[in-house]
């Protein structure tokens, strides 16, 4: 009986081992593959650092809680800024929009529209799903009432970070931006490099505040 019990125990242990063997082999193979996989380890090119991207590319103090006292509307800012205004400091207030997607995927940039232009949402008969694209307005009017806001990264170039949802930025959001006019800007197209951004939570106060 002792012989039979021992043989039974041996058989059940063997069966248990047989069941566990494939799992053990799989774990071992995965560990081996992970250890040997060097494909993702790319050494950076000599003499140049990989571009910083994502949230790390944005300045830490980009978003502020306090509104700016001297913010003007986009239209007024465009009137004030002429050609050769590179480096001039401006503070602009507007609504994010002007395109179906006012942001740039993978780049820290968005378009801002003056409050003088009515969104589709302000027309009660319009059931537009993307009211921030101002599709009811002619394209040249949208362009005339718009400005481009971009954020520079640590290298001074346009930051490789998507701003959608960051710090409350979203289509239709009302924002105030303090920054400088960039060299690509012209009388026909205002481009501002933002140093500080304030996202307004009270839409009414923002639209009736200082503007054009």
């Amino acid at each position, binding site marked *: 009986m002792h012989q039979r019990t021992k043989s039974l125990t041996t058989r059940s242990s063997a069966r248990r081992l047989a069941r566990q063997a494939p799992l053990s082999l799989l774990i071992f193979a995965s560990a081996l593959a992970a250890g040997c996989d060097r494909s993702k380890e790319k050494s950076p090119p000599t003499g140049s650092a990989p571009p910083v991207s994502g949230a790390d590319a944005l300045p830490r103090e980009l978003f502020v809680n306090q509104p700016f006292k001297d913010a003007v509307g986009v239209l007024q800012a465009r009137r004030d800024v002429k050609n050769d205004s590179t480096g001039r400091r401006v503070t602009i207030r507007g609504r994010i929009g002007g395109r179906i997607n006012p942001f740039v995927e993978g780049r820290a940039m968005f378009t801002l529209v003056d409050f003088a232009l009515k969104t589709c949402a302000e027309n009660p008969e319009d059931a537009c799903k993307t009211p921030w694209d101002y599709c009811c307005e002619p*394209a040249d009017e949208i362009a005339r009432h718009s400005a481009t806001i971009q954020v520079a990264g640590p290298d001074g170039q346009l930051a490789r970070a998507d701003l959608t949802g960051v710090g409350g930025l979203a289509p239709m959001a009302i924002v105030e931006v303090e920054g400088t006019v960039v060299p690509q800007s012209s009388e026909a197209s205002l481009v501002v490099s933002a140093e500080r951004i304030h996202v307004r939570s009270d839409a009414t106060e923002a639209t009736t505040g200082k503007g054009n």
Partner: protein
Amino acid sequence: MVMTQSIEPKAPRRRPRRRLRLLPFEYGVRNLGRSPTRMAASLIGAILVVGLTLAAAAFIRGMERSLVVSGRADNVILLGAGSEESVERSQIGAGATGLVEAAIPGIRSRMGIAYVSPEIHMAMSVQRARDRAEELPAVIRGVTPAAWLVHPQARLVQGRAPEAGRDELAVAALAHTRLGIPDEELQIGRSLWFDHRPWKIVGRFEAPDTVMNAEIWCPLANLQIATRRENTVSCIVLTLGGAEFADVDAFCKQRLDLELSAVRESEYYAKLADFFGPIRSLVWVTAAMIALGGLLGGLNTMYAAFSARVREIGALQTLGYARSAIVISLVQESLIAAAIGGLVAAGLGAMVLDRCAVRFSMGAFGLVVDAAVMLTGLGAGLLLGALGALPPAWRCLRMTIPEALRAS
């Protein structure tokens, strides 16, 4: 010496499992030939159902493929802001082409030629001759030589590309389908009329499985003059090299005065494919309704066939065959008939339907009968073959054995 019996528990005794005895396969095959009329009816029904399913699937596959293959992942279309959904409605300044080429680094180029193609896309009417008033609906694209670079799917197969400054055309392989005229009328040397003058066909090209395969291409400058839009084009198509889509989009948003909007070409055509979603649904619903009609017709045939064999089925049960085995045999007969009909339909479909051109709003496309379409058609046929046999088989087997044997 005392003998002691082992008191180990015995394993419970199991009833011996009976294996289901199936009817021979040849029995089902021979039964198919018992009534040639019924067999023919079943075959015709299967051919119709599978053929119809094949046609519907080939139509949808052809339409989808022409829209998917038309758009390349590395191409970006610059359209007028607000016209992102329709290149025909878009208008942008012709001068934007040079600005785009200069301002966006990383656009693909070859031997100093940038892959930047300004284009005009127009749906307009043309005529076969000056004295023929009949107007034919054409899709005309005004291009520069760069178009052949950004659209590598298009390749000249005969003649040459039309030259700027001349009223010349290159027609695609399915342009005749779009126009609704014989292909012979679009051979090299023939002409089409629009803007009150003849345009000579100097080349033929093909762009398989794309919307370009039904278009007529002409020099951009000539089309601008003919359509009185010297300062505008519909779009600019560029191919990315080292640049990313974000670089192009950023340029468009920095130059708001140009009123440009950047869309990946693949996304543009994918949205168009979504636009035709209701048509695809309509095609499937129509195919399903006719297939249902075929199924009901097949059911009728099966009911008649099985009802005539009630006594035979009763006799099989007295021989010891289980009802499930008889059902399997009846379904097998139906499946064989459906499979034969399905194979015939698949063969006819491959010969007749494949590459058959269909005209639609954006041009024309060819039906595609590939492996997936074949599988869909044959699968539908087999499914209907199986489903079509079950209700009649169930009805015949509901009777008890004595009732079945007494049936007339």
